[in-house]
């Protein structure tokens, strides 16, 4: 191994791959029956975290950052004057195996700039995965990025060796895509998604009958879009995501806050802040859709196009739907408990298990780990806690109380943006710690 050369390539090609946010390494059932190398049957493991707080689970690199495309939002675009490099198939295989053996990684995430043409590039990516699986008996996790426009045969082969395939949708709106990546076509993204999705469904069916049939991308299909680059609304972003979940059975959609990389007039300039808080709220919304039984339309709709940055989207939804609260902890069904702000899956499990034994009180919930600072305004317990019965007056007032109580890590970011409190708050004069004494909000439901 030429150490200096590899070091240089690694730093260039890891740097170019870092804007791909997926780091998931779970969901595959690849075990190690023949006592070779690797096992991805358990849950994913984050082996480290970068100084930006993101998890490092996979060796995430580009095969090359040479690219024939010129997408405005991408560092590897043709017109950008940067150092270029390319790994050989053997070099990627060697790094993967040796990092894996030292317990640095769960596996490989391999993407690439597009050189020559789509199929030529895709063929190389597939060859890396194939070599790892067939020549090295590698059972670690492999995530392959598919190249827009790659042939169906290559996608099929990719799915046989990779655990996960991904197709980036890049920009949430069609208009935005036309503006920033005029050479890319939407259907060059959706067509492979359709092929892969069909392949996954077919393989699952087949494996129900013949257990030894080969798995096709067992950890599913995922996608990513850049947010905050084209002035799109949260509604548009989540509509696109919802569409992907509904039509292509995606496992995950990733939202990547745009990191300014150029002074292109079409994009936010260098030095503009990365929309990290917005990104966080979008992920929360995504979680509500996938794990909390929410429909996208309940959270965002044409009259409510953007999420409330100051509050999590579940609390935002609850504020829009105060007529459904308070919820009785000792009687409500799972579905409704999951919709209470401050209660997550773990708490719901505990509540449902524990209330068989005795009626639960405010204190029980607190000890179980329910976030009572939010939940208290939406709950009824056995001891009919006074606070619960006296929720603040109207929606605006309750919103402001909730914001004041939240010790949000984003507080400083919000204050700078001047959007923390609604104007109405100026007149209420509530202090940060006072529990407001306002009876009438839930009057109808009590």
């Amino acid at each position, binding site marked *: 191994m030429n150490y200096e050369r590899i*070091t240089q390539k*690694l730093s260039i090609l890891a740097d170019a791959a870092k804007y791909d946010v997926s780091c998931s390494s779970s969901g595959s059932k690849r075990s190690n029956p023949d006592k070779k190398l690797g096992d991805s049957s358990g849950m994913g493991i984050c082996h480290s975290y*970068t100084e930006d*707080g993101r998890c490092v689970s996979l060796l995430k690199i580009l095969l090359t950052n040479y690219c024939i495309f010129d997408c405005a939002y991408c560092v590897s675009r043709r017109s950008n004057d940067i150092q270029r490099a390319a790994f050989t198939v053997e070099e990627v295989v060697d790094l993967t195996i040796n*990092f894996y053996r030292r317990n640095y990684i769960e596996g490989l995430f391999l993407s690439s700039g597009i050189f020559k043409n789509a199929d030529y590039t895709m063929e190389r990516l597939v060859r890396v995965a194939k070599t790892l699986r067939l020549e090295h008996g590698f059972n670690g996790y492999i995530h392959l990025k598919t190249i827009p426009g790659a042939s169906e045969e290559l996608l099929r082969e990719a799915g046989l060796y990779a655990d996960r395939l991904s197709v980036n949708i890049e920009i949430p709106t069609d208009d935005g895509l036309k503006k920033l990546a005029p050479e890319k076509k939407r259907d060059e993204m959706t067509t492979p998604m359709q092929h892969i999705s069909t392949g996954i469904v077919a393989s699952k069916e087949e494996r129900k009958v013949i257990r030894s049939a080969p798995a096709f991308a067992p950890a599913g299909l995922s996608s990513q879009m850049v947010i905050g680059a084209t002035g799109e609304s949260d509604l548009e972003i989540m509509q696109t995501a919802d569409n992907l979940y509904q039509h292509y059975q995606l496992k995950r959609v990733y939202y990547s806050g745009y990191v300014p990389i150029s002074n292109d007039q079409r994009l936010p300039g260098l030095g503009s802040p990365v929309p990290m808080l917005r990104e966080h709220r979008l992920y929360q919304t995504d979680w509500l859709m996938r794990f909390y039984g929410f429909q996208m339309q309940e959270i965002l709709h044409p009259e409510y196009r953007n999420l409330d940055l100051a509050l999590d989207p579940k609390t935002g939804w609850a504020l829009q739907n105060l007529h459904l609260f308070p919820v009785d902890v000792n009687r409500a069904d799972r579905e409704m408990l999951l919709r209470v702000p401050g209660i997550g899956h773990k708490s719901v499990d505990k509540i449902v298990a*524990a209330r068989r034994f005795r009626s*639960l009180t405010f204190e029980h919930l607190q000890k*179980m780990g329910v976030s009572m600072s939010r939940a208290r305004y939406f709950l009824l317990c056995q001891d009919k806690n006074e606070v619960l019965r006296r929720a603040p007056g109207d929606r605006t007032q309750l919103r402001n109380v909730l914001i004041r109580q939240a010790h949000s890590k984003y507080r400083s970011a919000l204050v700078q943006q001047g959007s923390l409190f609604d104007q109405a708050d100026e007149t209420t004069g509530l202090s940060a710690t006072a529990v407001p004494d306002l009876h009438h909000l839930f009057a109808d439901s009590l």
Partner: protein
Amino acid sequence: MSTLEYDGSFEGFLTAIFDCYAQKKTDVRIRNACASTTTLFGTNIRVRTDTEKSNRVWEGLKKRTTKEAARQFYCNFLSELPDFEDHLLEYARYVFASREDVSRDFSHPAVLRTAQVARMVGREKHRMEAFVRFQLSGEIYHASIHPDYNVLPLIGPHFKSRYADQRWFIWDEARHYGLLYDLEHLQVVHETPEETQADTARTSDYARLWKTYFQSTNITERRNMKLHVQHVPYRYWKYLCEKQPL
């Protein structure tokens, strides 16, 4: 109050629980003989580890609860937290006094505590599966760890199935014992193999490449050290080659 002293083993601890019942003791506590300090008041009774007794307690626990509850019970034992014996004794008493399975009665303090501690131990187990960094000396991959709880017995199977075709060794620096995998079996050892003691100071090329990767994959515009440290607490840094000056 009397104190039952056991030998520090899980079987010894279960035997002590058995003895509490057999001797109809109520005002009692259980302590590890190796760790306990002599008390001024009350009597100390040495428990003789007896696998027949310990099996009865263990089978009884499993019969009255679930496999998951038994796992949580064992995790609490491995936590080595102060007074964990008292909590587990209280938990066992509640389980044995109830007709139905109470292992999910999270409104009961002993049950909730057991579940919470098991979760803490589970988190540490997961961290060790993440933070072990092997280095290769001769033909053995080896690493040292310093876990908050005694999780070595829990992480063995994970590494065994993952690294089935390489010899490896993990040493717990806090508790002075290790796990050795020889391509066939896992074994507990109390001394580090000789070949792992050589050239530990030399950093391998792959460790340096890993650090290169770790730095290149960071997005400086999104720097968030608070989050970084939350996920990778300072106490683990000395075992992570990417956090070392190379």
